[in-house]
């Protein structure tokens, strides 16, 4: 009897083992998770065009990742969720948004904000909470060795003015003197100093410089003084596209025949819209080639989703979004320390537009500034024509 029992038990065990071997167990379903990315920018008021460009860039990058199945970390497949707040282009709004993102939404990665003032305002909150920040902003004070969690995705005139003006000086050797007109704020003053350095390096003498208050609409009195100094170039880097269009138009109307150059602050189509035919011949910095098929496709996606034109600033946040998600995928972590270390050691990132590298040690004391490829554009017959691509 005991023997019989033993053989039955053995047979059952063998049968169960065989069944397990023949019929594989149902595959364990991967867990589903969510990676929250905070976003702060101007989503209303005068900066809305730039702010929505930034948001759209990031959200389209997140959409690419989510459509491709998300990011797998361990046994969890994560989708990207962007939580966006409007800072109304101001410091108090940005601080409030950062506090809310950290304490209520529980994010440890923030993309944005747009302006220098909001950027400087949130630094205490984000650094003390070890929150990784991938920002816009123009000020040199945004980055420093004392801000180990703050990175900047958008290149400033400190990065592109020298190669841009150097290339123009080589191509147009007759240009020997320049005038710079800039808004009277921190951005305007920094841009002017970068441009002066770039012109000096290119062997072009800055013969006159002037500032104006933002909101100025009648530039004729200031331009009368500038045109009297007979500069070969008038550079209005630092001005908004609408102001640039008005400056350009009014300078031509009072008889200026020289070369206009516009550095940062993408928005050439707006300059063309405001200045009309007067914009022809303008040489400018362009963060993208709007005639490139991939960029056109991205513009179409943005316009279909947000019902407004895609601002060129958005390209940095599309590419930057992908760089961030790529870092998460490769490091298998969303911890700000892990991502920070990865980005600091990253040699390059290949985006839609080409090669991006991290730099900025000489200017900011920390390698947290993204150096992007850019284009030298010229307005010809009311259209944007790219003359040259300059790689970092």
């Amino acid at each position, binding site marked *: 009897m005991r023997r019989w029992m033993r053989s039955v038990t053995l047979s059952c065990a063998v049968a169960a083992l065989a069944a397990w071997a023949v019929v594989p167990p149902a595959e364990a379903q991967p867990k589903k998770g969510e990676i929250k990315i905070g976003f702060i920018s101007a989503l209303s008021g005068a900066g809305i065009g730039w702010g929505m460009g930034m948001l759209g860039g990031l959200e389209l990058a997140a959409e690419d990742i989510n459509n491709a199945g998300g990011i797998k970390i361990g046994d969890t497949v994560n989708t990207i969720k962007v939580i966006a707040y409007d800072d109304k282009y101001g410091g108090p709004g940005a601080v409030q948004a950062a506090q809310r993102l950290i304490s209520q939404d529980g994010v440890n990665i923030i993309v944005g904000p747009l302006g220098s003032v909001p950027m400087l305002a949130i630094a205490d909150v984000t650094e003390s909470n070890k929150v990784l920040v991938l920002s816009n902003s123009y000020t040199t004070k945004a980055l420093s060795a004392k801000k180990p969690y703050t990175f900047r995705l958008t290149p400033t005139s400190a990065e592109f003015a020298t190669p841009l003006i150097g290339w123009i000086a080589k191509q147009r050797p007759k240009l020997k003197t320049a005038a710079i007109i800039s808004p*009277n704020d921190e951005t305007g003053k920094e841009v002017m100093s970068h441009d002066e350095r770039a012109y000096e390096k290119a062997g072009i003498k800055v013969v006159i410089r002037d500032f104006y208050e933002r909101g100025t609409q009648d530039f*004729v*009195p200031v331009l*009368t003084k500038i045109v009297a100094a007979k500069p070969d170039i008038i550079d209005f880097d630092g001005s908004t596209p609408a102001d640039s269009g008005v400056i350009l138009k009014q300078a031509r109307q009072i008889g200026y025949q020289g070369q206009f150059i516009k550095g940062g602050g993408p928005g050439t189509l707006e300059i063309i819209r405001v200045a009309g035919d007067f914009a022809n011949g303008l040489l400018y910095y362009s963060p993208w080639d709007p005639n490139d098929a991939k960029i056109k496709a991205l513009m179409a996606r943005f316009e279909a989703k947000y019902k407004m034109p895609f601002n060129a600033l958005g390209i940095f946040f599309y590419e930057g979004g992908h760089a961030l998600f790529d870092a998460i995928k490769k490091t298998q972590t969303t911890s700000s320390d892990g991502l920070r270390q990865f980005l600091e050691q990253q040699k390059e990132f290949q985006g839609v537009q080409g090669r991006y590298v991290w730099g900025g040690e000489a200017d900011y004391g920390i390698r947290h500034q993204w150096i992007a490829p850019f284009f030298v554009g010229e307005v010809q017959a009311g259209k944007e024509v790219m003359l040259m691509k300059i790689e970092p």
Partner: protein
Amino acid sequence: MLTLASLAQIVVNGLAAGVFYVLMALGFTLIFGILRLVNFAHGEFYMLGAFVVYHLYAQLGMNFFVALAAAAVAVAAVGVLVERVVFAPLRSRELSMLMSALGLQIAIQGIMAVVEGVEGLSLPSPVQGVYRSGWITFPYDRLLVVGAGLVVLLLFYAFITWTRLGQALRAVAQDGDAALMQGIPVNFVYTAAFAIGCALAAIGGALIGPVFSLQVYMGQPALLKAFIVVILGGLGSVPGALVGGLVLGLGESAFATLFGGLTSDMFGFLMIMGILLWKPTGLLGRAEA
């Protein structure tokens, strides 16, 4: 170095800017004079006028001056609606009216930002070209603004001096209660004054639009200039707006050309401080009893 030619250019630039500022300030000071309302939304009516002309003239091909008249009528109609709905119930509660004007400013800006977008647009000028002599350079579009602005000023002066409604406006501005006792329909006069002020703002925006650029936020700097002008000239004083506008335009032109853009912006505010210390009611303002 200051030459006779540069002096002539300074004067011409300054006179043109002065007429721009008078156009921005005229309706603002009229509304304050009658309703005792510092209309923070004035710049938005200026912007609405420019956009109406943009659509009628630049997009639909209507004659510029017909579009200008249509803009004045359309914005005046909006003004009637706003005055009856927003301000009439708050009459004589100045602080409440002030806050409503602020709210109106933000609301109009927000609606227009959604409808029109926030990027700058160009309103083509009905005249092209530049007048050049050995002395001065003067774009014809500015000449048009100066000419049209002077016509508007003359028409407004004639209206306020010789028409029954103009006389009623002046009577209410002097003493609303006394005007009521004389049988003047004061509520109608309030609404008419607000509508005329809005129409003047619209004409200003539509005339100046081709010289500058169009943007839904274009009313803010215009309002700031209007403020400076009416405080310089005296709040509520129409001749004061004329004098204030010209003084500010000429002063800014001289300072910008001689010393740069920053000193020109400082000039306006320093001048206000100086004049208010010397004459607290402004150049042509009257002290209230």
